[in-house]
């Protein structure tokens, strides 16, 4: 029966025809439903499971006393178990590659709603402050795996409004190059390790993702990333603008800590001495700015790169000099950028843990 014949029949039988508006609404709902199903399926197939899912689960269900947030330098350099041995507190490393100041803020805020940590340790990589993030895979994934809440909605709006609509509506589009990984993605997502939020899912011959969030990069690993020389933000308009945006988000984290009685320690983990030699002016400039912020806002800054620390008066901490015990030789890192190998990371974590234990 054709559509027009159906309408006539319905009318003769006394049945009500749907108005144009209702038909449009039904069509729109069908379209949205089909789109949602297709997008969900494509996400399942294309987006590989990430350790950030496990980390967010831990923060939302079993928040630690000392929470570490930060970048890939922080994941590789700070072993929470070594810190805990010095501080006596439960510690968890929720740092992630691609975690910008905006992400750090919302992760901290999300954790606070489950139970505020006693202390927030933010690993500071000044190179991240030269960019505004631009909706990378980490951010998209973090937003998706967070439980529904006002924080998640706020995070979504803060991140997604100004970015490509595909980031919000079709996040799988960034994973199209991984078509060959579809069978592996499906297998992993159906495994017990995935269901139980276990880091055992992320096996790699050259690094181990520990259950405490630390990534132990094998002492033989060589990632091949070169160091870069960075512009001073006073000389680059775009970098200056990005810095201001990053600073605003960081200060929101500072405020969050203040309002919730959370102690804040910002730490810059060591980088290879050869990398520092080639980019000293940049690191000194950025760390001076962080120290100033620390002094103005009353938080601790431990600078293991250029020694521009901000610690409470009378605190006896050696940090950022050759005698502080932190590893800086090139052999302690898997790349020139500054991702520590496991032995160096554990040595650094012992040093850092002792410094933390000296803080009031």
């Amino acid at each position: 029966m054709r559509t027009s014949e159906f309408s006539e029949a319905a009318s003769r039988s006394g049945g009500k025809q749907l108005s144009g508006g209702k038909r449009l609404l039904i069509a729109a709902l069908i379209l949205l439903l089909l789109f949602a199903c297709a997008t969900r399926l494509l996400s399942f197939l294309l987006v590989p499971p990430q350790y950030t899912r496990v980390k967010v689960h831990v923060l939302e269900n079993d928040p630690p006393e000392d929470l570490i947030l930060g970048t890939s330098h922080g994941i590789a350099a700070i072993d929470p178990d070594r810190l805990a041995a010095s501080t006596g507190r439960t510690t968890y490393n929720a740092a992630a590659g691609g975690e910008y100041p905006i992400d750090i803020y919302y992760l901290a805020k999300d954790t606070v709603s489950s139970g505020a940590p006693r202390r927030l340790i933010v690993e500071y990589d000044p190179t991240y402050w030269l960019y505004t993030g631009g909706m990378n895979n980490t951010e998209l994934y973090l937003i998706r795996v967070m439980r529904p809440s006002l924080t998640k909605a706020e995070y979504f709006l803060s991140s997604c409004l100004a970015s490509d609509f595909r980031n919000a509506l079709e996040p799988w589009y960034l994973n199209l190059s991984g078509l060959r990984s579809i069978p592996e993605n499906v297998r992993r997502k159906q495994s017990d390790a995935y269901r139980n939020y276990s880091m055992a899912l992320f096996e790699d011959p050259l690094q181990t993702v520990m259950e405490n969030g630390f990534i132990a990069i094998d002492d033989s690993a060589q990632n091949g990333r070169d160091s870069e020389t960075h512009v001073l933000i006073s000389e680059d308009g775009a970098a200056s603008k990005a810095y201001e945006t990053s600073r605003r988000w960081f200060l929101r984290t500072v405020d969050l800590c203040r309002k919730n009685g959370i102690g804040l320690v910002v730490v810059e983990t060591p980088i290879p001495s050869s990398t520092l030699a080639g980019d000293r002016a940049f690191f000194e400039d950025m760390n001076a700015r962080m120290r100033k912020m620390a002094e103005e806002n009353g938080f601790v800054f431990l600078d293991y790169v250029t020694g521009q620390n901000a610690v409470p008066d009378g605190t006896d901490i050696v940090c950022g000099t050759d005698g502080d015990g932190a590893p800086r030789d090139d052999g302690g890192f898997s790349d020139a950028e500054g991702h520590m190998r496991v032995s160096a990371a554990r040595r650094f974590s012992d040093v850092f843990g002792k410094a933390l234990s000296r803080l009031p």
Partner: protein
Amino acid sequence: MPHISLGFLLFTALSAAVFYAVPKRRRWIVLLVFSIAYYLAAGPALILFLLFVAATTFFGALLAEQKKKGAVPAVLVLNFGLLAILKYTNFFISNLNRIPGVSIAEMRLLLPLGISFYMFQATGYLLDVHWERTRAEHGFFRYLLFVSFFPQILQGPIGRFGRLSETLYAGADFDPDNLRRAALRIAYGYFKKIVIADNAAVWVNYIFDPSRNTGSRMGIAGVLLYGVQLYMDFSGGIDIAAGIAHLFGVRLDENFRQPYFATSITDFWHRWHITLGTWMKDYLFYPLSLSGRIGRFGKWCRKHLPKQAGRALPIALCNIIVFLAVGVWHGAAWHFILYGLYSGVIIGISGLLAPQYRKWKSALHIDDKSRSWHLFQIFRTFVLISISWFLDRSDTVRQALILLKNSFAGPFFSLGLPFDGNVLKAAVRFGTVLFGCALVFGVSLKKEQGVPVMERLLAKPAALRIALLLFFLLSYGLFGDNTAFGGFMYANF
């Protein structure tokens, strides 16, 4: 607020929801509020320029309606003077600096979003009132909406008050058909931009990168791809603008009419960026060609030159001036100026040689109603336009000429493309652009044959439209380029 951002989509949806929620007679106010909000989101200071243009042309038109002498020239000088200062100051400075001993620092000037579009729209209105083609609008805020209407402010089309006002202030009733039309047109526009234009842009940017390709023989491929990118990007943006306007029951003028089916350069400019072409025709070409100076020049030509040249030369001169203006409108650089002049000179010469062409066709027994001649004309025009794209796309005249020369230096068809070793990626990108072009070509062919494509689609079962929209939505993620969050090319004007 980039048109590809989620924020813009939500903004548009919200504006439509509020539009239909308020009483009919207040709906134009909703459009005005959202248009101003859209512009403020780009930077609060920029709205001052918009208000300046709106205020000067509004009051100028009121004075013109009262036949106050001097009002119109004064307003035109103010507005075009402002545009000249903002857009062309550094161009003059950089040229002056080529003189030995001259070293003037370039100025840091703000180029307000869409100024080239809304200024032309506003001055067009002023001249229409002056020439009594349309009535003056006496409500400043209603007029401000005409200047600032957000779907078109970024890249046109350049509207005419007489036509646009018929639907802009009407406060359309909710019509499901408008929404269907809008959804299809917007989705099609994003398909052209994200799937076709942005993929083509990856290769175009590589080929035209001045640091990489001075000796490139990929010029032919580059210019063909640029022709694809430019058309898909610009017409895609216009489709989105027109689709959004449809949401409110507002009809915008069409800006493209299957331009690559043009049979001459003149015909091309009747099909490409139509509203700029008609603006130039109505507000520059006709006044110029009917002016006293050109009239006197015409008399001199008819007196001293052969008959055809005497008639055609003044028109040719006017065309060259108009296309010089078109080139200047595109940007403050010599390659844009030459880009405009190129079309102007060809049109001028065509006019001068028209009788000669008729003789040649007669001698060669060419039937100019035949299909093969028609196809030849399309091909010829396509080649001529493609050559102009070298000038449009390159960063300098020198780069354009080098690329043009190198394109023909080797074997004639050297259609090499940049290749980074990833066969699958290159094949998918190439296939995507090809498929996208085939789809758009099919639609364009139907429209060229007079088939009302949109009306046919609206008459089909809803399931087909749902399937089509679903295809478009998924294609953005599956086939769209994901290496750049590319804005629209004409949004920088």
